[in-house]
């Protein structure tokens, strides 16, 4: 029993030292949030209108949006959207974005879309909320990236 007591002190000291050293290491790991990258071709996979899921009632095959690396976007012709054609886009905050700001090429005013960028089943999902016509009607588009990346 005495031996256990004698040995326990050095063991405790070793443990404290180990925990302390871990803390230092953890403190050195950079924790800065990465910038969000939404570039790519996005396919609408789920579409709701005022909370009602219309995904299986509409043909979503051609509902696509391109967010290009040069900061431009292109909306597919067949996609009901708040703007049509192409223009420039930016995130309101590259690290903690709450919205995507679209600047249409036609020179119309900027459009601000509510934005979420969750990881669903290991893949990034782009979720955009907008009103297409009347402001009382809210649409949510959940999109998946077509060109591979997460």
């Amino acid at each position, binding site marked *: 029993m005495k031996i256990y007591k004698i040995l326990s002190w050095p063991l405790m000291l070793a443990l404290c030292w180990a925990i302390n050293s871990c803390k230092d290491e953890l403190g050195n790991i950079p924790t800065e949030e990465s910038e969000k990258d939404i570039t790519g071709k996005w396919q609408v996979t789920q*579409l709701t*209108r*005022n*909370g*009602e899921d*219309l995904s299986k*009632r*509409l043909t979503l095959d051609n509902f696509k949006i391109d967010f290009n690396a040069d900061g431009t976007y292109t909306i597919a012709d*067949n996609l*009901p959207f*708040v703007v*049509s054609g192409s223009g420039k886009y930016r995130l309101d905050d590259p690290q903690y974005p709450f919205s995507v700001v679209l600047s249409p090429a036609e020179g119309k005013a900027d459009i601000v879309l509510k934005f979420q960028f969750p990881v669903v089943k290991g893949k990034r999902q782009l979720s955009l909320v907008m009103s*297409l*016509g*009347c*402001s*009382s*009607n809210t*649409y949510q588009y959940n999109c998946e990236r077509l060109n591979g990346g997460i």
Partner: protein
Amino acid sequence: MKKNTHYSTYIYWAMGFFLALFLAQCGLKAISVVVPKSAKANERVTFTMKCGAEPRIQGGGNYSTQLLAGIMVPKGWNARKNLTMSFTSPKGNGTMRIIPDSELEPVSGLSWHQAAKKMFGIGPNLVDDMEWIVFRSTQAYSFVNNEDIDFTVKAECNVGAENMLLSLGFYIGSSIENLRPEDTDYKKFTFSNAFEVTDGEGDLIDFINPQLGTVQPVKSLDNDIITLTFDAGVTNTVLDQEAAIYLHVKAMDASGKLIAEIKKQTADTKLSDIGGKKYRIDIWPRGFFKLDKDVHIARLEYFYSDVTGTKSVGYGNTDAPFKYTFRCD
């Protein structure tokens, strides 16, 4: 160590039993409402909810919470801008404030208003152009065991400018209980009998009686996605024996000039059979009519037809077309 595990099991069982007993024996009374049969357009109307609390707190102690009250009205009333709520009770009277959209109901992760709509729906209304609006008392109130009280909540709002027939929704709840789907004790809701708005603008919008043809959303523009529904169960029509129903539709501009007409019976114009003798089609008018950027549809005129296009049904089962005007207000 084994003994400790044994004890902790008993403690968890006891906590679970206490919680079950507490939930089973405490809550709100059923809600009843006083709603006038009708009101004139734009009139300010008072709707009254009567409810009560029955605190049965096992083992004594206090139950402290804020009162929640909600009302479901047509979006067109713009009730968020003019709705007020207040309550009277033996524990004091008070005013209530709308819960901000930014505050999420913890169980659903939605705003309280959206969560209420998801939980309670639109009741006997057949057309979804409704919104739930949830208010909360500015003060919290503490209850001791068996401190049963009855209280009354009054909601006042303007009824909007359009003629309509609808059923209103009402909700009473407790702020600390949230909107748990399994809970039946702390959230009470009900829907009113028919309420009519008279002496207003336009034809009567009937939310509660089945219509041969309806369009959702009730208010939209040509860039919205709209759903046209044909309810063949409302009355006998020439399409009763038809296996497939098609849409024949004209798009008009603000001056009444015809912009485009689609009357071919194709996959694009075929309605889906959704059961119960109901058929529907979802269209995005701008894409459906392939409109140029500067062209805007003000109104649709449409019929439902058979596969040959020879038999068709219009408004009220007549030869006149169903009409739908694109507007937001």
